């Protein structure tokens, strides 16, 4: 096993081009588990945790840009807004895990249970990747996440980060699991009320091969809100049912498909109620 230790992004991209089989490692919260258990023996590992270019987090021109190397601890500390991304970051692992785990790792691993991913989906985030040969390119989140643990990243590319338009309006991330900490989501849901675009966007994690948007439910909620009155209990139920209908869950060790559908409806109703209460 070769360990590559680049100090800058250009150096890292050159190394990745020369060794496309090198597995990137940042916080190690996924990669090291595989190595420790002998499930992975990559021919090479490239440590991207020291690249200053991946460590930036900034707000600019109404957008939020988060480098792939930004940890969950930094997201909580530096976003400092109690918004959905902060909430999602707070549910990741434990303090020790949040000190190491990165947004780029969540994207690279592309687990359907990645806690930050429903938030990126609800924000319609863009993922930026780069290679030495072709420079950088930007891909929408849904083109980047192509399946369970599968992404559109090419072998010579590295993930630079993600960015999204700063949304004016309420929103939340909620998650069902067997305890509050150290839990892999059975269901994760992010709802964003976008006041500028008059949209409600809902994204689901852990209930399909990848992150899913509940577009029918989004249209329904938008219609109700456009009529400019508060939502009725029946409409809230209908919204929950539509969100559950967007899920494509399976039975696995963490929960059954039917439980996951039920949980989607419950979380969706709660999330929309919270967002509307905050709006009033």
């Amino acid at each position, binding site marked *: *096993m070769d*360990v590559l*230790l680049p100090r800058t992004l250009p150096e890292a991209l050159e190394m990745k081009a020369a060794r496309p089989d090198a597995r990137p490692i940042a916080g190690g919260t996924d990669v090291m588990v595989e190595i420790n258990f002998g499930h992975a023996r990559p021919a090479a590992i490239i*440590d991207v945790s020291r690249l200053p270019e991946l460590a930036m987090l900034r707000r600019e021109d109404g957008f939020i840009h988060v480098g792939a190397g930004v940890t969950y601890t930094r997201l909580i500390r530096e976003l400092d807004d109690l918004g959905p991304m902060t909430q999602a970051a707070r549910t990741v*692992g434990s303090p*020790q*895990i949040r*000190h190491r785990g990165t947004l780029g790792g969540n994207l690279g691993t592309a687990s359907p249970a990645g806690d930050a991913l429903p938030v990126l989906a609800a924000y319609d985030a863009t993922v930026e990747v780069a290679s030495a040969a072709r420079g950088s390119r930007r891909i929408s989140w849904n083109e980047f996440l192509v399946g369970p643990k599968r992404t559109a990243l090419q072998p010579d590319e590295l993930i630079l980060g993600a960015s999204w338009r700063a949304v004016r309006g309420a929103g939340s991330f909620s998650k069902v699991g067997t305890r509050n900490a150290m839990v892999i989501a059975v269901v994760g849901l992010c709802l964003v009320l976008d006041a500028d675009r008059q949209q409600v966007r809902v994204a689901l994690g852990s209930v399909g091969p990848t992150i899913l948007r509940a577009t029918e439910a989004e249209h329904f909620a938008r219609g109700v809100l456009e009529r400019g009155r508060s939502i009725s209990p029946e409409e809230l139920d209908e919204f929950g049912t539509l969100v559950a209908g967007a899920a494509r869950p399976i039975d696995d060790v963490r929960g059954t498909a039917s439980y996951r559908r039920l949980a989607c409806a419950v979380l969706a109703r709660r999330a929309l109620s919270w967002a509307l209460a905050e709006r009033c």
Partner: protein
Amino acid sequence: MLIRLNVNGRPHEADVWEGTSLLGLLRDGLHLFGTKNACEQGECGSCSVWLDGEVVCSCLVLAAQASGRDVRTVEGLAENGEMSYVQRAFVEAGAVQCGFCTPGLVVAVTDLLARDPHPTDEVIREELSGNLCRCTGYQKIIDAVNLAAERRPSL
């Protein structure tokens, strides 16, 4: 591969397999056995150490990622053979049964009290959520944190 790093304020080096974790380097390379190896997947916190001042699970850090950096382990807490105030509080509160989780908890609690000298029980539970104890039922650990908070030496 040869890894050079600072551990508890002193330079060390160890020749380890490329896929070795920082935990493996500390235990097998440097024979610092205070940092415990249990789950090897970041679930239990018994391998908690400081890496450049931040508490991490050393099982999830590739040893090479720690090269040139500052690591502080539970062995770095006692001074001149005297237990630290957190270690004493664990003993006095009876927060130790089998003791396997204790080094990781002592590290996590020392870090917590340095940032938040008087944490509420809710904060303590949240901050220690990455450290599993299968014996005590946690109440005595929380008692130990409160006792340590009372006795924390002023810096």
